């Protein structure tokens, strides 16, 4: 059975995380096991300053909060959201 080596997702960045990454959106290649955690590791490999944020981030996949263990599909819109501060 053919297995893709990686999956591409669109990662969006907001608030202070956007300032760390220096961009609003990136295409991200996620290696197996294709989870939110794996996507975060891929991103933190490029932007090491993100590691300090890991404990306070929430993951959204296709605009829904999900656990970091969530398995991603190719084409998903993901975002690692810093603590919200509306109001």
């Amino acid at each position, binding site marked *: 059975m053919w297995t893709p080596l990686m999956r591409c997702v669109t990662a*969006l960045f*907001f*608030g*202070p995380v956007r300032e760390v990454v220096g961009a609003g959106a990136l295409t991200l290649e996620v290696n197996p096991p294709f989870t939110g955690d794996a996507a975060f590791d891929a991103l933190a490999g490029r932007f090491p300053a993100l590691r300090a944020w890991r404990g306070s981030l929430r993951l*959204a996949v296709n*605009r*829904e*909060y999900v656990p970091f263990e969530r398995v991603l599909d190719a084409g998903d819109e993901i*975002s690692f*959201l*810093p603590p*919200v*501060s*509306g*109001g």
Partner: protein
Amino acid sequence: MVAITQDPIDVALILRGLAGGRTGGIDVFIGVVRDTNEGKSVAAIEYTAYVPMAEEQMRRIETEIRERWPAGDITIVHRIGLLRVGEIAVVTAAGAPHRAEAFEACRYAIERVKADVPIWKKEFAPAPD
């Protein structure tokens, strides 16, 4: 009704939308930009949002409120962009037949907004003298 807007929030318009019919009372929370935060002077706050997700989260909160207080109605509006001290950033307004449900639903709405709606603020200090 829920909305994210770049424009100033018109509280009177929101109240007109809730008054009438079976509404016997309206409770309103208005969040405004404050001149200090954690001991630092603030001149303005820039609010940014993950707009499509923020709108979905606000609609979810609206649905929760309609399920918990079915006789009432709720309006949630959050402004984004650069706001100066004193400007209105958010309004939650709950109408209900009686005041108890209006107070409860309004409080529930703003607490849920602050917990889960993906909006962020960045504070700007006044220019030095």
